[in-house]
């Protein structure tokens, strides 16, 4: 039994209905406990004071905003190479989740930036990159919506995702070159010195896990929805021909 067996839509539905409750549960558990831990039981930081609590939303959503796009890129490649429908539909299902993650990252960033930098918005390279990423998500979703034939839409959006990824990386470098920013370095890195203090680190990890599980639950559920819509469409097409 290889992993590709789950590329069959029917088998995918069966599997996802079994694991979905687990993912929903883990997502709720991690998010609630992580956010409560972070919000109520972590101290204020010297420089940031209470705004440090925004980190539990800002960092996980920003990570997810990028990871969702990477997942869409991988799914698009799988569709283009192996033509598994579930893969294409998973990419379609993930895009709105990515949009919301990007929006949360941008919103919390703006709310955090206001007291820290004295401005809601600065054309800082990271903020700008996220804004550009947001535009890429919008274009990707708009292309899916605009094309009627599902396979054509899957092919075109996959090509767009590939090309868009290259240009997103290019934009990232271009934006870095264009304006060196105010943003602090990565909050999480393998280099211990740079990391946030342990007291914030652990609740942050729980929140990140929560966002990941929420993403998985949402994508599995939404992919199931897309599969059902496709099946409805396929059955109707046969009805017409019968």
């Amino acid at each position, binding site marked *: 039994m290889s992993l590709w067996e789950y590329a069959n839509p029917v088998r995918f539905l069966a599997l996802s209905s079994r694991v979905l409750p687990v993912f929903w549960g883990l997502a709720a558990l991690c998010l609630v406990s992580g*956010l409560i831990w972070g*919000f*109520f*039981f972590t101290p*204020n930081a010297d420089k940031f*004071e*209470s*705004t440090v*609590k*925004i980190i539990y*939303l*800002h960092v996980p*959503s920003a990570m997810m905003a990028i990871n969702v796009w990477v997942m869409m890129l991988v799914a698009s490649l799988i569709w283009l190479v192996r033509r598994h429908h579930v893969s294409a539909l998973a990419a379609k299902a993930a895009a*709105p*989740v990515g949009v*919301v993650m990007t*929006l*949360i990252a941008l*919103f*919390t960033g703006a*709310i*955090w930036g*206001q*007291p820290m930098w004295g401005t809601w918005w600065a054309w800082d390279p990271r903020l700008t990159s996220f804004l550009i990423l947001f535009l890429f998500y919008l274009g990707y979703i708009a292309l899916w919506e605009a094309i009627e034939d599902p396979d054509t839409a899957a092919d075109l959006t996959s090509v767009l995702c590939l090309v868009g990824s290259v240009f997103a990386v290019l934009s990232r470098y271009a934006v870095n070159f264009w304006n060196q920013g105010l943003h602090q370095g990565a909050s999480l890195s393998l280099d211990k010195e740079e990391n946030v203090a342990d007291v914030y680190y652990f609740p942050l990890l729980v929140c990140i896990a929560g966002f990941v599980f*929420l993403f998985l639950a*949402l994508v599995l*559920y*939404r992919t*199931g*929805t*897309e599969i*059902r*819509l496709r*099946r*409805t469409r396929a*059955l*109707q097409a046969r*009805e017409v021909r019968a």
Partner: protein
Amino acid sequence: MPDLGKYADAVLSAYGVSSLLLLLLVVFTLRKGRAARAALEAVEKRKNPSG
């Protein structure tokens, strides 16, 4: 309630906006999922009236 100091507005609005966005995402996802399920069931019933 922890002491949020002078930045209470910022922290609370960040949490508020984020939860609202996530909640909306989940609600719309579930609604679309229900509709898709119902539509599929209708078509399948037409296809196999016996069940």
